[in-house]
Every structure is written in C-alpha cells, then in structure tokens.
C-alpha cells in the first residue's frame, strides 16, 4: 500500500458529525424526559446536564469539522486557519465542561445517596408506622366486631337464663353469705304466698320452718359446697307449712370464701298428696281383698241365721215376745247381709252390667230421689251439666250408688249449718278424654289430718248408727272398677282460681266411651 485515501476520512467525518448530533439530541431528549418524570432523582439530573453538554460539544465539534471541510474545499483555507483555534478552543472548553460535569457527579451522587438513604429510612419508618396503624385499625375494627358479637351472645344468654329464671315453676333463689335472699323468682313468691311486687326482704331463717333444717342446710353447704335433694319444710306467709325438696350450690368469691349460694326449691305438696293417695290405694286394695274373703265366709252363716230365724217366725205370733225377738234377728241379719253385700261390691266381687250410660241422667235420677230430704234441711241443689257430655261405659246402678253416697255425705256435712248449697257439675276434658262429675258442698270440709283416711273402710265421722264407714270405700272401689278415680278438694278453689271456698268437692273422673271418643275425633 503506497497511499491512504483521506476521502474516506472526510466522508466519515461529515457523516459521523451529523449522526453524533442526531444521537446526542435523542439522548438529551430521553434524559430530559427522565428528569421530568422524576425531578427528585439526582441521577436523571446528572444525565440531563451531561447530555446537554455533550450535545453542545457535538454541535461545536460537528460545525468545526464540517466548516473545515467546506472552507478548504472552497479554497478558503486562510479563513479556516483563523477559525480553527476558536473551534478547537470551544471544543476544549466543552470537553472540560463534560469532564467537570462527570466528576461533579461524584459529589452529587454521594449527596443523592445520603438523601436517598434517609428517604428510604424515613419511608421504611413511615411504612412501618402505616402498617402498625393499619394493624391497629384492623384490630380496633375486629375488636368492635368481637365486642358486638360477644355482647349479642351475652344478651341472648342473659335473656335465655332470665326466661328460665322467670318462667320456672320451681322456686329459684340467690342468697348472700348471711343467708339473706337477694333474688327470688315469681314462682318462689307464689310458693311462699308472698306477692311478687312489694314483698318484704326475706331471710332463709324466716323461710325454713325448722331451725334444725336451716342449720343442717348451712352446715352441709359449708362442708360440701352443695346441698342435694334436701327435704325440708318451708313456712309460708300465712304461717302454714309446705314440704319442699331443696338443692343448692355454694358460690365463692376470688378469695375462695363463701359469698352466697343459688338454689332451686321444688314444691312437694302435690307429690306428697299423690304418694299418700298411692299408699291409701294400696291399703284399700289389701283391705278390699281381705274384706272380700271375710264377707264371703260370713255370708253363708248369715244366710243360715236368716233362714232359721224366718222358719221360727212361722211358729210364733209377731206380737209375742219370741216373734218380736225373731223379727229383730231377721232385721239385723239383713243389715249384716247388706254390709256384706257392700263389702263384696267394694272388693268388686259382685257382678255388674256394663253399658253406655249418661252421667247427666244418673245425676238427674239421684237428684230426684234425694232432693226431698235435702230440701227438708234447707239445702239448695244447683247443677251445671255439660250438654255435649259423652257417655261412659259402666254399671248404672253402681254409679248411682256412688253419687247417692257422695250426696248423702254432703248432706251430712251441711245439715249442721241449717242450710247449704249442693252443686253438681259435669264436664268433659277432651285432652285426657275423661268425663268429670263434681259433687260440691259448702259444709264444714275435711280436716287435713283425716283427709288421707276418708276412703278407709269403716272410717266415719258420723254418729254411731248413722253411718257404716263403707260409703266412700265402696264408692272408691266402684269408680276404680270403672277405670276412673276420685279426687278430693277441701277447701275448694273456685273455678276462676280467684278465691278459696269452704266445703268439699269430690271430682269423679271416668273415661269417656270409645264410640264417643271416635265421634269426637271425627
């Protein structure tokens, strides 16, 4: 190679200079856009100034180079030699500026990094605070929701237990350590006979009828922490007693000291009555069996005595002393036979005829028979018969005998007063399908101490010779034989449950006939 063509250099120089201007301005544009987008970013600021200086350098250098080629090409070399130092000096100045800007970047970036570090630190702190605030807010929000939900649950629970407390048929009470009642439900007030509103502050000492029961209760509570099924007697407001079954649990404070107790008390009166009636029923059953055996054995000799007495009466004049004695023997023997017959009926040994009968009709028959004697003693008869009373299956004669016995007893109870009111009521209880017939008087009533014995055979309060003591026993047997039962109420609670009336009411409950039951169902 002998020569190197500079034409290539000239072309490259001109083209390259122009292209460098283009790319330097394109770079400047992006640097400007970057600095506009993030004005706080020092790096973009540095790049913008760097590109700005570089663009100036590119223009200066390109102009110098292109101008050189043009001037030399056009033969103005002298002019170029004049301009050359200016162009070179400008280029030098801009190159030094570029270098200065680049080195200035060093300090700038340090400052920027320091600021950036602080910013990041502040941002992290801010983020942490924001996160903590969010968490706190969320916790508060959840706390409010949880509190609302828990309040709702507590409210529902409180309502549930309040209902249980208020609607309980048993007494529920809360007392303090000194046995002073703090809270007592309405059933408790009712059981003790106090008004629910305006009742005095009660102490267990006032409620327990026996002091020893209270001591026993309290000592057991202290020793065991609870009392279970303790049978005690409570004193009612009117001074009467009431048998109750008591269960209680001690309540302790945070120092494990007894602070009170809560208890439930069940009224045993009804259960006690039922138990007494059950015991009486068993006793009656055994007595009935025994009486049946005795009656059967006595019936035969009585027949013989009566037969021989009647035979001998043929041999003596009725006016003679022997005839009168035989008549007495015959009459008393018949009384004995009647007693025996009653005993057999009581013990269901005699036969009976069963048919559909109307209790209303039986009662009307009995009233017709007994009304005269009742009126003699100024006893008024009232009746309230149900019109749609279903029939019962039974023996008309025997049921009539029951009602005669009951009315006779009522008559006896009222005759001492010189007047009285006898009320006969029939009704139908569709829930248990029973026909209920009530015989109620306003006589002296039945004392509590003999109430359990009234159905005992031979038990009577009548004078000697006026009653055998078998009337109620026989009635009891007949009703039981009909699948029914007798309930006694003395004194009598009025039908509207508002007042207590003196006297006695016998409630006969007999099962309604099945045919009628079917028709009622239809």
């Amino acid at each position, binding site marked *: 190679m002998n020569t*190197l063509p*500079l*034409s290539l250099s000239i072309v490259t120089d001109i083209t*390259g200079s122009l*292209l460098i201007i283009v*790319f330097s301005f394109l770079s400047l544009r*992006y640097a400007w856009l970057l600095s506009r987008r993030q004005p706080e970013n020092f790096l973009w600021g540095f790049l913008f100034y760097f590109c700005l200086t570089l663009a100036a350098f590119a223009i200066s250098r390109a102009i110098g180079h292109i101008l050189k080629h043009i001037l030399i090409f056009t033969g103005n070399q002298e002019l170029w030699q004049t301009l050359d130092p200016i162009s070179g000096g400008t280029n030098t100045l801009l190159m*030094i500026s570029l270098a200065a800007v680049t080195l200035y970047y060093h300090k700038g970036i340090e400052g920027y990094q320091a600021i950036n570090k602080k910013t990041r630190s502040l941002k992290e702190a801010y983020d942490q605070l924001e996160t903590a605030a969010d968490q706190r807010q969320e916790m508060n929000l959840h706390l409010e929701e949880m509190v609302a939900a828990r309040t709702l649950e507590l409210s529902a629970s409180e309502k549930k237990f309040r209902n249980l407390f208020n609607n309980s048929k048993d007494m529920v009470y809360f007392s303090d350590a000194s046995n002073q009642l703090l809270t007592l439900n309405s059933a408790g007030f009712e059981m003790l006979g106090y008004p629910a509103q305006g009742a005095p502050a009660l102490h267990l000492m006032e409620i327990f009828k026996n002091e020893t029961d209270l001591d026993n209760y309290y000592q057991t509570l202290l020793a065991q922490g609870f009392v279970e099924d303790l049978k005690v007697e409570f004193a009612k407001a009117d001074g009467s007693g009431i048998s109750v079954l008591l269960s209680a649990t001690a309540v302790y404070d945070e120092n494990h000291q007894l602070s009170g107790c809560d208890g439930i008390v069940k009224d045993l009166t009804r259960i006690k009555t039922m138990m007494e009636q059950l015991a009486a029923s068993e006793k009656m059953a055994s007595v009935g069996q025994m009486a049946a055996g005795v009656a059967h054995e006595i019936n035969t000799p009585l027949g013989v005595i009566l037969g021989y007495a009647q035979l001998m009466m043929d041999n003596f004049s009725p006016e003679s002393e022997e005839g009168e004695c035989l008549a007495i023997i015959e009459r008393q023997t018949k009384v004995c036979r009647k007693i025996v017959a009653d005993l057999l009926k009581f013990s269901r040994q005699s036969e009976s005829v069963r048919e559909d009968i109307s209790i209303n009709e039986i009662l009307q028959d009995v009233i017709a028979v007994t009304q005269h004697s009742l009126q003699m003693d100024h006893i008024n008869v009232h009746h309230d018969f149900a019109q749609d009373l279903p029939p019962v299956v039974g023996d008309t004669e025997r049921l009539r005998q029951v009602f005669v016995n009951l009315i006779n007893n009522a008559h006896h109870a009222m005759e001492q007063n010189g007047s009285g009111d006898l009320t006969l009521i029939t009704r139908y209880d569709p829930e248990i399908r029973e026909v209920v017939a009530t015989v109620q008087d306003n006589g002296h009533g039945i004392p509590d101490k003999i109430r359990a014995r009234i159905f005992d055979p031979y038990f009577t309060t009548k004078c000697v010779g006026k009653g055998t003591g078998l009337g109620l026993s026989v009635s009891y047997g007949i009703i039981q034989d009909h699948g029914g039962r007798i309930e006694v109420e003395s004194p009598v609670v009025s039908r509207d449950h508002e007042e207590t009336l003196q006297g006695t009411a016998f409630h006969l409950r007999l099962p309604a006939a099945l045919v009628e039951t079917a028709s009622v169902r239809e």
Partner: protein
Amino acid sequence: MQMLQSPMTLFKKLTPLALILPMALLLLPDQAWALQSHGSPEGIYVHQLAHLFFAAALGYLFWDIGRNSFPGKGWRYLQIFCILMILWNFLAFSGHWLGFHIADSDILRPSGYFSSQIMGPISTIKLIYFCATLDHLLSLPALIFLFLSLRSLYHSSDDKEGKK
C-alpha cells in the same frame, strides 16, 4: 474543629503585607510578573489535557457505575459508552499528537481536496494518524450506546412508575 480567627487578629496580620506590596510595585517595577505569555502550542496542550481529563472523568464514571451496581440494561449501555468514549479520547489524543509528525508533503491532493491521500511509504505513525481521522467509528457507536442507555433507563423508570 478549626477555630476561626477574629477579624481584628486577621487585620493585624495582614497590615504589614498591605503596606509592603504597594511599595514594592512602585519602587521595583522590573521585577513585577504581572502577565505571562505562552507559546502557540498552549492551545493544543490544553486540548490534549482536556482529552485526558475527559477520559479520566469517563473512567471514573465507568468505575462508579460498577461500584454502585446500578441494576438494569441502561447502566450497562452507559458503561459501554464510557469505554468507547475513553478509546475515542485516546485515539483523538494520538491523532492530535501524531499530527505534528505528519509533514505537509506527506499529504497529496492530486485533484482537489476530496482526492487527498497520505503518501507512502506508510509508516506506523501515518497508519495511526489515518485511523485517528476515522475517530467517528468510535464516537458514533459511543453516542448510539448513550442513546440506548437513556432510552432503556427511561422505559425501566416507566415500568417502575407503572408498578407504583
């Protein structure tokens, strides 16, 4: 911490100098070097030093980008720009330097300016000088990489803004 001198103390120290300097200028004018002139090469020396200064600044920028581990393609392009521009600076420096060693007779223009050519025999100096006249083959790619760098940085900042 450096203790600052009070204005009064500073005044006392400068008072003799303030009196001597005007007297010396008035009494000994031949010894006063008020202005120093340099020869014609001063301009090219400053220009060459500017090339070296610029190259050094670019080298620092290249190193600092690597040191800070700025992420992204844009910063890698900027480092390539730095390398190419450093090379351009050295090439330009060499071209300016070797220009003094090329005589006017070494360049022949047989039929005008565009027919200029370097006459043989072609030495290393002449060859390097010829290459130096083609310096745009380095500077133009460098500017292209600068453009690519800024464009990439712009788009990546666009992505970050979008994510925010």
